[in-house]
């Protein structure tokens, strides 16, 4: 009976439609003409792109599963030296994007690199280069992405382990299972939805990864899209590869959503949760647990951080050459502007969905949150395609001035695409905050004489305040690390820490990439530390 087509409904609909622009563009461009590049590429590289993407995906999933689940299991169920420290330290890897990890890996193991310097200072001059392993190419890309992304699996698996009922663990003991048998017969299957959800996120990020694979010159579908645009100026073909990649990603997206729905099952069962007592490890078990967690923490965070710190100190001239203050201001400018806009619009959209309770709007909202699954490269190129089409077909036919410059290579365009990319993060974050407010709370508010606007301002916004702050920091973290969108759409002479690091690295000036990389890691790490409690969901207790 309630068909509330009010102003909130239309605002929400417009926001959802805007976010859907790139997807519509990619799908509609499937029928466009492409250049000869398509024929050449189809016969030569397309198979290579698909094979490389698949190999990368397989090994990253395997390794992130082992690292993420292994560390989560240890810190959730056992007490060993520094286990409480590792609990949150293991998520610091989020501060190191795969491309910066790739720079560190190369800088350390390359000929006459850091490893060589260490060996030389310890054992004197010798030709160590032939004995130092080289982590480049596909292997380097797999390692870089794994150590940067395993925390997705770690966080979700840990949350699931943490909320597993004590009864379940006791049941295993009762049945006489060993620790190992309890793990793979009871604990792991119960956490499966959460782990699958974590792996799906890793899969989407891996397929979308641009910086690291580009640095190691691995041709994947994502770099293929970028190259077909930058080298061959063929937007239609770029969109066509995007189409194939999107089909792949949507399958993952559906799996992730499906798993997440089940994963919810583990959380917030009021009264059903009983804090597990951790088992204290001793002797060799304690030592191996510590070593494993320390290895993962060291490799994922300390190693890239110290490599970048080392180079910054070793080549101080790079520090003074860079306009650090300008880079900081540019980065903060984008972060604050984008977070603010994203939060305001996501709030409006969520509220619109809530008060309208309209099926059509629900469908559009569900589709519009798929933005996070779409690689930044696709979004940026689809956005350019859309603006080009809009300019040609509508603006010019009306005899107006071209609008390309307003949207392409401008802060406005950049923020708009960030909006599309991170809309789901803001929308879902606010949505999960809203899910804690029973709809009868709104109705009580109306019955106490509050209007819809007053209910929104006086009841919802104060309640969501903490969630909003947390979401703003998460968005900031993503934008600081973001590379392809910024690279493609930034205004001329407008650089961030991420783009400066990328440009230096792509010009083979890895030492120069160290300073912006170090700043990026430090800022991101401080954001993670501030929000670690929320990220780890420890507040749900």
């Amino acid at each position, binding site marked *: *009976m309630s068909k509330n087509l009010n102003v909130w409904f239309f605002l929400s609909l417009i926001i959802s439609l805007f976010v859907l622009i790139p997807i519509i563009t990619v799908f509609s461009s499937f029928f466009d003409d492409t250049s000869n590049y398509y024929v050449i590429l189809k016969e030569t590289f397309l198979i290579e792109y698909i094979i490389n993407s698949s190999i990368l995906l397989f090994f990253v999933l395997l390794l992130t599963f082992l690292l993420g689940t292994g560390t989560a299991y240890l810190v959730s169920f056992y007490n060993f030296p520094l286990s409480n420290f590792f609990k949150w330290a293991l998520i610091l890897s989020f501060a190191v994007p795969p491309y910066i990890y790739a720079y560190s890996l190369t800088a350390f193991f390359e000929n006459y690199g850091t490893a060589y310097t260490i060996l030389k200072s310890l054992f004197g001059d010798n030709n160590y280069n032939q004995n130092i392993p080289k982590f480049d190419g596909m292997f380097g890309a797999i390692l870089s992405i794994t150590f940067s992304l395993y925390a997705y699996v770690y966080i979700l698996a840990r949350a699931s382990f943490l909320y597993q009922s004590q009864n379940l663990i006791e049941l295993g003991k009762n049945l006489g299972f060993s620790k190992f048998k309890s793990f793979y017969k009871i604990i792991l299957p119960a956490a499966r939805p959460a782990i699958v959800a974590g792996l799906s996120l890793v899969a989407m990020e891996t397929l979308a990864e641009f910086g690291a694979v580009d640095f190691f010159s691995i041709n994947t579908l994502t770099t293929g899209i970028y190259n077909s645009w930058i080298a061959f100026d063929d937007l239609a073909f770029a969109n066509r590869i995007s189409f194939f990649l999107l089909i792949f990603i949507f399958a993952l997206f559906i799996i992730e959503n499906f798993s997440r729905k089940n994963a919810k099952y583990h959380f917030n069962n009021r009264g059903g949760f009983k804090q597990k007592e951790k088992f204290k490890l001793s002797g060799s078990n304690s030592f191996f647990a510590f070593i494993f967690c320390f290895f993962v923490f060291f490799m994922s965070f300390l190693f890239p951080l110290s490599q970048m710190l080392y180079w910054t100190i070793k080549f101080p001239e790079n520090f003074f050459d860079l306009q650090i203050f300008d880079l900081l201001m540019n980065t903060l400018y984008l972060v604050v502007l984008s977070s603010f806009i994203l939060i305001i619009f996501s709030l409006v959209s969520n509220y619109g969905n809530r008060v309208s309770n309209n099926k059509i709007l629900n469908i559009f909202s569900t589709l519009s949150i798929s933005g996070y699954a779409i690689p930044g490269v696709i979004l940026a190129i689809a956005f350019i395609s859309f603006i080009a089409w809009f300019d040609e077909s509508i603006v010019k036919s009306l005899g107006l001035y071209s609008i390309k410059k307003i949207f392409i290579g401008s802060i406005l365009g950049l923020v708009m695409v960030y909006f599309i990319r991170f809309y789901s993060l803001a929308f879902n974050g606010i949505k999960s905050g809203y899910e804690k407010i*029973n709809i009868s709370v709104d109705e*009580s508010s*109306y*019955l106490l004489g509050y209007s819809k606007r007053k209910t929104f301002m006086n009841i919802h916004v104060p309640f969501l305040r903490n969630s909003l702050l947390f979401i703003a920091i998460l968005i900031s973290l993503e934008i600081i690390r973001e590379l392809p969108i910024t690279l493609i759409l930034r205004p001329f002479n407008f650089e961030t820490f991420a783009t400066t690091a990328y440009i230096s690295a792509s010009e083979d000036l890895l030492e120069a990439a160290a300073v912006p990389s170090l700043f990026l890691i430090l800022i991101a790490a401080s954001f993670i530390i501030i929000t670690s409690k929320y990220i780890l969901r420890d507040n749900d207790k």
Partner: protein
Amino acid sequence: MTNKNFFEIENVDFYVGGKAKVKDVSFKIENEGDIICLLGPSGIGKTTILRTIAGLEKIDNGSITLNGRIISSNKINIEPEDRNISLAFQDNSLFPHYTVEKNILLGAERNKEKKDKKISLKQIVDLLDIFHILNKYPHQISAGEAQRASLARSLITQPDLLLLDEPLSNVDQSFKEEIQVRLKKILNQLKITTIIVTHDSYEAFYLGTKCGIILDQQLKQFDDPYKVYHFPNSVEVVNFLNRGILIPAKVTGKNTLENWDLGTIEGNFIKEYPTGSNVQLLLQPEDLEHDDTSNLKLEVVDRKFRGTNFIYTLKTPSNTLIPVFVHSHHIHQHEVDEKFGIKRPIHIDHIVCF
């Protein structure tokens, strides 16, 4: 439009998700301060009726009038915030980020403009015994306490019409009767017209000036509690109240019936039936009296101890199971399979037949 009734629902269909839950409902509250209880099984649409009256759902036909003003019809729909109707939800609808005290005070804000404030925060807090939770947040209190806090917030608004959805369903049984007494007292004292939805017939019979029984998508009966209990107007109401059985009988005279197992039954018919007609007689537990000297003896198949009384279930020669009420101080207790005497002649004050 003027209306002599304080509140009136006329021919309204109530919907949930586009589907009619309760159809063609009409009833009125003549006097300000009356308490109406709506009874019915779970999921029948009782809450929908309250939500619609509060303005949270719209209607397509009929009308709802409060204080002479139409508040809902197919053309008019006064927004919930403009109705001065308060609804206390069954589930926890307290604002989660405010303390209980702040929650209640938000209700008092609406009351600010009223010059003749009849009740203070302190009185309400004492009434519902919630002083100890005033500084707590909703997630720190029990479901029963949350329900009382929600009730306090609704009461303090002093609405024109108060709607209570299963207001005491989560309150401990030991405390429930006391709260019922206090609630009735305060509602009468403040003259707040109230509609209460409940599935607890004892609660409805105690609190209600009038009771409505909702069954099979209809308001089956709307009457005084006494009449609803003793003069149910349909077999469905009898079955819902579950306080008696229907047995076959033949009308043998102006004040008599004949049953194959029990013999002659006397009493006053509440509705006339022609002599010789076959009817279904409503037999309630208190209609039969125990008498071991009687020659009418039936077999005991079950005995339920209810504190103040026993309810025996007796089997007749034709295998009909009959409930009989006996005081718990009664010394002649009978075990299962023993014989139980029924006083003859059987006299029933008001005979209800279908």
